[in-house]
């Protein structure tokens, strides 16, 4: 009996050892909402099917702020996760710290260079190494419009800023709030970048928000951007401040408000409410006065350097799973974004996603696709934070457009 129990124990120990030796991958992320979790599930299924154990490490809260703090603690204790969801400049920062490994061999084998647009490569391939694996691309310069509201005043969807500004009084007359807006600092930052590209064009956007050129930030074109921001300030209801973005989407969904300027993650709210694009709502890019443009945000899982070969194997399987064309489509059907690859068939996706994906391809080719500023792709967190302060202060006051532009330039100069 004793011998039996000893051998059982040994067998158990052996099998535990076997479990430990199995390739595994720990994924740290902040995708905790229903659609996001479902999207990640598509990746997980593929990884598990590839014989790799999936350790989920979700950290909810603050649009990733909480996860960022947790990551800092993990790094400080010398125990980085295998993969972590990070945005933009953060990836470049961690790569500069020498913390990120790469999957170059896999990327070369699977031909990622040809599959990913330059815009995506800018934030996943650092110094020629693929340190991060892109799951999807979001477009942030979007207007979500209620068809019912536009039908009520009998107007077509706006294609210029003049059209849009002229619509506001007509909506008010019809008892509809022209612009649904959630007055939280980060939402105003996204609205600002959409207006900056829409009014100023890709050239201004690059100079002002990527190169942080002081003369451009203080120039007349920036004042025009703030003029339009002031016009939008006049279209929101009195109760906007502090509202969550999905509540603002709900106002468009139930026809209480006509439009919302928000990234394409808002589509999930419309889909969950049983609305379909074209019939109930329209997804239109923000008007462009100075040439075409596209503000993109890349979501990707960054790979931290690992020593254990099983962990490295796990990272490879994860990377390959994310880039799998079927997984890319399944992921983005659930998340409401578009695939990072531009070489796959999107027949399964809705009209909004197809249009956005096509726009990404043309803008990427035309050099008018610009990285998101609010999502810390264009500049680092300290600059974006300071600029966000200036923009949100402007939007919540009756400051003049030129004062707003000056405040923004001062804030960026101080944080650079």
């Amino acid at each position, binding site marked *: 009996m004793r011998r039996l129990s000893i051998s059982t124990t040994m067998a158990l120990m052996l099998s535990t050892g076997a479990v430990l030796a199995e390739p595994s991958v720990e994924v740290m992320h902040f995708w905790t909402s229903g659609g996001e979790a479902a999207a990640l599930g598509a990746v997980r299924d593929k990884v598990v099917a590839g014989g790799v154990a999936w350790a989920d490490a979700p950290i909810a809260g603050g649009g990733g702020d909480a996860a960022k703090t947790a990551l800092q603690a993990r790094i400080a204790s010398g125990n980085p996760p295998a993969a972590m969801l990070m945005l933009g400049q953060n990836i470049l920062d961690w790569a500069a710290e020498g913390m990120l490994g790469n999957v170059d061999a896999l990327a070369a084998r699977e031909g990622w260079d040809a599959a990913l647009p330059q815009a995506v490569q800018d934030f996943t391939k650092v110094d020629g190494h693929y340190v991060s694996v892109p799951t999807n691309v979001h477009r942030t310069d979007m207007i979500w419009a209620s068809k019912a509201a536009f039908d009520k005043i009998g107007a077509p969807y706006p294609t210029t800023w003049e059209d849009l500004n002229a619509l506001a009084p007509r909506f008010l007359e019809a008892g509809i709030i022209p612009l649904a807006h959630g007055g939280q600092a980060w939402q105003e930052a996204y609205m600002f970048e959409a207006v900056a590209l829409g009014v100023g064009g890709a050239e201004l956007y690059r100079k002002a928000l990527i190169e942080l050129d002081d003369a451009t930030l203080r120039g007349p074109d920036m004042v025009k951007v703030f003029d339009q921001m002031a016009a939008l300030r006049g279209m929101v209801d009195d109760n906007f401040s502090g509202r969550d973005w999905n509540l603002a989407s709900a106002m468009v969904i139930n026809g209480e408000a006509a439009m919302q300027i928000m990234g394409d993650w808002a589509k999930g709210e419309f889909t969950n409410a049983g609305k379909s694009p074209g019939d109930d709502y329209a997804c239109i890019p923000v008007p462009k006065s100075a040439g075409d443009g596209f503000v993109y945000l890349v979501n990707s899982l960054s790979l931290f350097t690992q020593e254990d070969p099983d962990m490295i194997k796990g990272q490879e399987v994860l990377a390959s799973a994310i880039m799998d064309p079927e997984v890319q489509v399944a992921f983005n059907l659930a998340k409401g974004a578009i695939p990072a690859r531009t070489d796959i068939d999107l027949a399964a996706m809705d009209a909004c996603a197809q249009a956005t994906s096509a726009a990404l391809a043309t803008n990427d080719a035309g050099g008018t696709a610009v990285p998101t500023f609010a999502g810390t792709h264009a500049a680092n967190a300290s600059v974006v934070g300071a600029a966000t302060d200036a923009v949100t202060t402007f939007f919540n006051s009756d400051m003049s457009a030129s004062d707003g532009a000056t405040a923004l330039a001062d804030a960026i100069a*101080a944080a650079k």
Partner: protein
Amino acid sequence: MATDADFRTRLQDWLPRLVLAPSFAVTLLFVYGFILFTIVLSFTGSKMLPRFTWVGFENYEKLFALPAWNTAITNIAIFASLYIVICTVIGLMLAIFLDQKIRGEGMLRPIYLYPMALSFIVTGTAWKWFLDPGIGLQNIMRQWGWESFSFTWIKDSDMAIYTIVLAAVWQTSGFVMAMFLAGLRGIDNEILKAAQIDGASNWQLYRRIVIPLLRPAFLSAFVILSHLAIKSYDLVVALTGGGPGRATEMPATFMYSYTFTRNQMGIGASSAVIMLMTIAAIMVPYLYAELKEKKA
């Protein structure tokens, strides 16, 4: 036998020290050690991770040039002064009224004290809903027929800081009341009777005798309220999220966002040091006075 007794005395000598040692060591490391670490960091160019590149007072210079920090300082000045004064006045009044040997005091006391049992997050969220013009007080008043009623402080950049005072006062004044009540119960009745025989009016009684005798209670209330004010973070986050715009930014929210979300650890650390120094400026004279009194 002698050695036995000796051992027991020695053990009795050492036992308290042995028992206290772990918590002492932990406090030393995790409180004072990290305070030192923060001070060190505030003189370095740390961005995302601690980096020991010395930059002197550069972080402090940057800090005081930031409009957000100036907003935070102004806000804490408004908030702390109003919060401390109003809480003390309301707490004292409630305590005096409750001390009139009224019926049902046992029931009234906990009613005033219970808000303290809530976390600031709960208080903040509840007050956010209550003050929200769309769903809270204003909406209710309008539904009841008072169409012109308007109360939009929480959406107003200039007034939002006062909503934080409002919620914080609601939360803490009951607690201050309890402290004053304990002080009142500690006053010798003989003194009051003697004063009454001398013909002192009720007003004189309180102004000249009771309130001066409550000095220790005032001091404790002040110390507790001032440190609650300076570290107020959760209430702001729950009630206004620092908004509208950045109108209700406080030193604590500033410190968190600069250290952990904006990769400006050096500036964040220097703001934490400034907060520590502010608290120290309040606490050190108080502790000094307390210790001196005990010696005398």
